[in-house]
C-alpha cells in the first residue's frame, strides 16, 4: 500500500501550511473544517440509513435512540459503563491509528488484545501469593504490552522485510493468537475447578486493578487518555513522528532520504500492538479477572472503525471511542427491550464504516472549504 497511502491529506496539508504562513487563522479553519464536516455528514447519512432499516423491519428508530441514550449515557451508572467499555476501544483504535500514520492498514488489534491479556494472566498465576499485588500488576501490564507489541510487530516486520500485505497478515495473526490462547486455556492452564467455561485460574480480588476513586470506571480509561496525548505528541511533535509521517506519505522519498524505514515501520507496529496488549491486560485485571474466550469480544474490530472515524488522530479517538462505547454498552438494553438481536450494533457499525469510507470521495469537492485564491483550481 505504499503506492496508495491512506494519509491522502498530506499534500493538502503542505498547501495549507504554506498558505497559513502568509494567511490568517480563518483560512486554516476553513481548510480543516472539511475533516470535521464530512465525517459528521457521513455519520448522519449512516444514521438515516439505519433508521430506514429499523422502520423496514418494523421497529422504531426513536425508541432505538432513546435506549442508546438510556443504556449508554443517560444515567450515572450507564455513563460509567460506557467509559469502562470505551477504554479498550481507545487502546485498540490507537493500534490502528499509529500504523496508519506510516501508511499501513493494520487490523490485528483483536489478536494483540487477546494474546496480551492471556499472557499477563498466565504470568500472574505463579506470582499470586508470592509477590505483592502492585508489582505483580506492573509486571503483568508490561508483559502484556511486550507480547502485544511483538505480535503486531511481526506483521510490520514481514511488511518491510518480505513485502507481505500487512492487512491480511495482521488478521491472520489475530486468528493464530486466539487459537494459542484457546490451546492453553483448554489445556495446560485450564482451571479444573471451574466446570463452566474453559478459563485460566482467577487472579483473585486482591490482585485485581481497582477503579478510579468515586467511580466504577477502571484505570484503563485513564491510561488510554494518557497514551492518546503521549502518542499524539510522539507522532506530530517529534523527529520520530515526522519521519514516520514522511514514510507514510511517500515511501520512496523516505528511502531516498536515508530514513531508517524498516525500524520506523516495526516500531510503529510494535507501539500499536503494545496499546492493544495493554487493553487485554485491563480486560483481564479489571473486568474478567481471568483469561478466557470472552477476551475476543470484538473490541479490536470496533477499534478499527473508531480510528477511521477519528481520521487516525489520537486526540480525536477518545470522544469517538466513548460514542461507540455507549453504543456497545446499550446493546444489552436494546436487545431486551426492543427484541432485536445482539448483532444490531454490528449492523450499525458496519453501515457507519461503509458510509464513512464512501465519504472519502467528497474531499476536495466543495469550494467552500478552499482558501479564496484556490477556488478555480481542482
Amino acid at each position, binding site marked *: 500500500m505504499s503506492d496508495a497511502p*491512506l494519509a491522502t491529506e498530506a499534500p493538502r496539508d503542505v498547501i495549507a501550511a504554506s498558505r497559513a504562513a502568509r494567511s490568517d487563522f480563518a483560512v486554516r479553519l476553513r481548510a480543516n473544517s472539511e475533516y470535521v464536516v464530512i465525517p459528521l455528514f457521513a455519520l448522519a447519512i449512516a444514521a438515516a440509513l439505519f433508521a430506514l432499516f429499523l422502520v423496514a423491519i418494523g421497529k422504531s428508530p426513536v425508541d432505538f435512540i432513546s435506549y442508546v441514550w438510556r443504556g449508554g449515557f443517560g444515567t450515572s451508572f450507564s455513563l460509567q459503563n460506557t467509559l469502562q467499555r470505551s477504554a479498550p476501544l481507545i487502546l485498540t483504535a490507537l493500534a490502528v491509528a499509529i500504523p496508519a500514520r506510516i501508511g499501513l492498514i493494520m487490523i490485528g488489534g483483536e489478536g494483540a488484545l487477546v494474546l496480551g491479556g492471556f499472557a499477563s494472566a498466565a504470568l500472574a498465576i505463579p506470582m499470586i501469593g508470592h509477590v505483592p499485588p502492585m508489582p505483580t500488576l506492573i509486571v503483568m501490564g508490561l508483559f502484556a504490552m511486550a507480547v502485544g507489541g511483538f505480535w503486531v510487530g511481526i506483521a510490520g516486520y514481514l511488511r518491510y522485510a518480505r513485502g507481505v*500485505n500487512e492487512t491480511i497478515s495482521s488478521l491472520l495473526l489475530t*486468528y493464530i493468537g486466539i487459537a494459542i490462547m484457546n490451546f492453553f486455556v483448554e489445556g495446560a492452564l485450564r482451571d479444573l475447578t471451574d466446570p463452566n467455561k474453559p478459563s485460566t485460574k482467577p487472579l483473585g480480588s486482591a490482585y485485581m486493578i481497582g477503579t478510579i476513586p468515586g467511580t466504577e470506571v477502571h484505570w484503563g480509561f485513564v491510561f488510554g487518555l494518557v497514551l492518546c496525548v503521549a502518542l499524539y505528541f510522539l507522532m506530530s511533535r517529534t523527529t520520530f513522528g515526522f519521519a514516520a509521517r514522511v514514510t507514510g506519505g511517500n515511501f520512496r522519498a523516505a528511502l531516498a532520504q536515508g530514513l531508517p524505514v524498516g525500524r520506523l515501520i516495526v516500531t510503529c507496529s510494535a507501539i500499536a500492538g503494545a496499546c492493544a496488549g495493554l487493553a487485554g491486560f485491563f480486560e483481564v485485571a479489571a473486568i474478567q479477572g481471568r483469561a478466557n474466550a470472552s477476551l475476543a469480544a470484538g473490541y479490536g474490530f470496533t477499534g478499527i472503525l473508531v480510528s477511521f472515524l477519528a481520521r487516525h488522530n489520537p486526540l480525536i479517538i477518545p470522544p469517538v471511542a466513548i460514542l461507540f462505547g455507549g453504543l456497545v454498552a446499550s446493546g444489552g438494553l436494546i436487545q431486551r427491550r426492543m427484541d432485536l438481536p445482539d448483532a444490531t450494533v454490528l449492523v450499525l457499525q458496519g453501515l457507519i*464504516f461503509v458510509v464513512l469510507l464512501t465519504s472519502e470521495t467528497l474531499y476536495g469537492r466543495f469550494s467552500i472549504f478552499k482558501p479564496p485564491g484556490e477556488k478555480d483550481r481542482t
Partner: protein
Amino acid sequence: MNDAVLTVLIAMLGGAIRVSTPFMFVALGECLTEKSGRVNLGLEGTLVLGAMVAYAASYHTGSPWLGVLAAGVAGSFLGAMHGTICGLPRVNDVAVGIAMMLFGTGVAFFFGKPYIQPEAPRLGSIPLGFWSDSPNLKSALQVNPLFFVGILIAIALAWSLRNTRWGLVVRTVGDSAAAARAMGISVNWVRFLTTTVGGFLAGVGGAFLSLSYPGSWNQGLSSGQGLMAVALVIFARWNPLRCVAAALLFGGAGAIGPSLQSVGITQGYYFFNAAPYILTLAIMIATSSAKHSARDMPGELSMAK
C-alpha cells in the same frame, strides 16, 4: 498403528475435498476480481452472509439448491456494493473491504439469529466410494456436487480469461487501466461486474459451509476462510486452475485437526485448528518479496506491492 495412519490419511483426503470447496469458490471469485485490478477483502463477510442466506432459503423453500442460488444473489449484492463504492474516486478498496467484512458479518448475524436452531434440508452428496469395502474410504468419498461445479467453473474461468474477448477486456483493465480507457472500455463498469460475479461465487462458497460441511448455521461457522482464500489467490499467482490446487492444499491443512480427532488424538486440537492460518502466513512469507512485485500479478493491483 499402520491402520491408524491409514485412517488419518483417508480422513484427510475426504477432509481436504470437503474443507477445500468453500476456499475454492471464494478464491475463484477473488481471482476474477483481482484480475481486473481490484482487491475485495470483504469476501469473508460475503462468505458468512452466503452461509446464512443459503440456510434460511433452504429452510423456507425446502430446496437446498435454491439456497445455493439465494446465497449467490446475496453475495453478488455485497459484491455490487463494494464495486460501486470503489468506483468512486479517492476511495481505498482495501479499507472498504474491511468495512464490508464487518457489515456482511453483522447483517448475517442479525438476520441469522432465528435460523440457529431449526434444521434445514442439506445438499446431498455423490457416493464415489461405491467400489470400496472400507467404510472409512466410503465416507471420505462422499463428495458434494458443488466440488465438481467449482472445478468446472475454474476450468471455464481459466479458458475464458485466456481465449475470449471479455477475458481480454478483464485482463487489460487489470494490467493497465490507461490502456483500457484508450480502447474505450469503461474500467469502472468492468471492475463492478467482476466484483459482483466474485461476490456471487463467494456467496456460493458460503452456501457450502451451511448446507454441506460443517452443515449447519451458527455464528462461529467461518473464522477466516474468506480471508485465507484471498491470500491463497496470491499464492496461486492469479490462475484459476492453481487456485483449485491451492484450495485442496489448504483443505488438507484444515482437515488435520478433525482427522487426528477421528482416531482419538485430541491433544493439540487447537494447535491443529490454527494450522491453516499458519500455513497461509508461511506461504505469504515464502511467495512475497520486498524488492519486486509478485509473479504474474495484475499491474493495477496495489495490494501485494
